[in-house]
């Protein structure tokens, strides 16, 4: 039978009379856990921000019609050349339109799918922005702007004007920030655009769009789908891309595969499109955890040291306890509970320190041209990091306490008392 009250009382007395060592050991844990929380919150915050910078602009599945050469060249169809070794020089892409065939039926099919959170049509057009005699090459994307705003965070990147403004204006355009700067244009101005065929259209700037990625902001603008269809002189069913957002991003790859086969289109999942990005964030996470675990292990060694010293100091006490009827297990529990108390208190304060530091970082101004929506350093307040932090504090102090306390358990009282 274990008498917890007595054991904890002895542990408490030891800790209180050795206040300095207790505080030192607890501080070791506090700093370890605090640094872990701060580091992991800050790093994953940054990761998340960088990821979302790219990933939020990438649909889970992107469907389009790829311009590519036919896999089977006509010569292969000739039976006469069946056994011959055919060489075809300068293969050209297959004659085909850029639009997705049956784009709207596919869209409707996707919208009915239960796995799909939403699907939006897009029409990408190559255009020129005219500024006096200067022509700037670029893209104009025709979108269903309200649906786009619901599914992606495009709204965050509209730095002037709103998505609603674009919807309300038949001839509106959300001009890329880089373009606006180059052409010295602002909201409310008019911009002339020209299609590849040479038709010129004036559009009214209803907003400025800034994604934070200069390469995009310098060439890309948004307009209503119908506007772009009209500019290009195409029918109302002419769309070049469909962006799909799923409820579960992990199904993207499988679904992209089946959609590609089903509709004879090119369907790319987010995983394929951003494979290198995932690798980057995985490695950053790995570094975060490696550093955190190192910190916690150092804290663990601190506890190990202090408990070891404590047990050397308390040899006589241990002998007396054993002589008066405390068993080896009782003695081990006394020292284990000291380790766990240090771990729990140190860990708890570590969480607080981590939270306070995170808060501080969160309030440090961080303004950059590239990230219009970010004003302070990003912090990821995930409750799981706190759960992991306190668990790690308890586990590491448990391990650090185990060896010294096992030694205390096996101390032979006779040898101590007789002084041999």
């Amino acid at each position: 039978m274990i008498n917890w009250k007595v054991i904890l009382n002895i542990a408490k007395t030891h800790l209180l009379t050795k206040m300095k060592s207790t505080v030192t050991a607890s501080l070791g844990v506090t700093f370890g856990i605090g640094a872990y929380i701060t580091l992991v919150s800050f790093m994953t915050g940054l990761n998340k921000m960088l990821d979302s910078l790219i990933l939020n602009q990438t649909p889970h599945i992107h469907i389009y019609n790829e311009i590519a050469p036919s896999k089977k060249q006509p010569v292969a169809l000739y039976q006469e050349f069946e056994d011959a070794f055919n060489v075809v020089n300068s293969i050209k892409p297959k004659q085909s339109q850029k639009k997705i065939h049956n784009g709207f039926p596919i869209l409707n099919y996707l919208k009915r799918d239960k796995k799909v959170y939403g699907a939006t049509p897009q029409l990408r057009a190559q255009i020129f922005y005219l500024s006096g005699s200067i022509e700037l090459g670029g893209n104009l994307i025709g979108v269903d702007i309200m649906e786009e705003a619901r599914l992606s965070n495009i709204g965050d990147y509209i730095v002037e004007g709103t998505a609603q403004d674009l919807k309300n204006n038949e001839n509106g355009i959300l001009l890329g920030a880089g373009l606006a700067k180059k052409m010295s244009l602002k909201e409310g101005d008019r911009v002339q655009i020209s299609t590849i065929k040479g038709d010129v259209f004036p559009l009214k700037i209803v907003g400025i769009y800034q994604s934070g990625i200069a390469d995009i902001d310098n060439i890309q603008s948004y307009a209503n789908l119908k506007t772009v269809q009209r500019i290009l002189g195409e029918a109302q069913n002419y769309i070049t891309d469909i962006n799909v957002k799923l409820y579960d991003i992990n199904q993207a790859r499988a679904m992209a595969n089946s959609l590609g086969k089903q509709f004879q289109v090119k369907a790319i999942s987010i995983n394929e499109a951003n494979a290198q990005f995932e690798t980057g964030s995985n490695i950053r996470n790995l570094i975060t955890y490696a550093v955190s675990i190192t910190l916690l292990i150092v804290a663990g060694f601190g506890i190990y040291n202090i408990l070891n010293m404590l047990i050397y100091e308390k040899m006589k006490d241990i002998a007396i306890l054993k002589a008066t009827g405390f068993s080896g297990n009782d003695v081990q529990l006394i020292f284990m509970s000291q380790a766990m108390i240090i771990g729990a208190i140190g860990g708890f304060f570590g969480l607080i320190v981590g939270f306070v530091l995170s808060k501080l970082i969160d309030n440090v101004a961080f303004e950059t041209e590239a990230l219009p929506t970010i004003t302070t350093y990003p912090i990821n307040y995930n409750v799981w990091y706190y759960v992991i932090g306190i668990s790690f504090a308890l586990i590491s102090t448990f391990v650090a306490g185990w060896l010294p306390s096992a030694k205390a358990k096996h101390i032979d009282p006779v040898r101590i008392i007789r002084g041999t």
Partner: protein
Amino acid sequence: MDFVLETKNINKYFEKPVEFHVLKDISFEIEKGEFVSIMGKSGSGKSTLLYILSTMDTDYTGELYLNNTLITGQKHQELSRIRNKHIGFVFQFHYLLSEFSVLENVMLPAKKLAEKSPMEIEQDAIEKLRMLGIEKLATQRASRISGGEKQRVAIARALINNPSILMGDEPTGNLDSHNSENVFNIFKRLKEEEGLSLLIVTHDEDFAKRTDRIIQMEDGRILH
């Protein structure tokens, strides 16, 4: 016969630094309420014997009975319980837990035993301290009291669970004559008033002569 402690052919060897036969066929018994002292030169094995009797040392051959039940071969956990309940132990060097108050030191073995409520234990502890004339020290830290007082606290602690036998390893060895006398008188009174059995290892011939029986040891054997 009603023996509180009985040994049969206890043998013990030290293996380090060289093999050495410390205890040779030790057989004796102590009756209930008997006040026995063990005397002998340094190295005669008397302390070694005492620690075997106290159940702390289990590395021996032979049989040890406490209250007519065989103790030899019991598990450590069980031995701890027996020590807690049936054996009170007083050392040469007081050996109190210096961070605890006098009262807590005395209460600790009883709290471990947990047969009584904390209130009862505290009353018992104060009762024992009063019996030994040191109840006014109850709230002092154990490190703040004098040597003679410490030894009396240690005796109070040894008695808290009303043990079957009180063992002492030169309990007066570190005390001046006045305090030694005091401790002896306490032992005597315990025997007479409470019927406690005592087994005391000592160098002090005056002390030993006044006990009921002296076990004289030499070279690991009992002479008489």
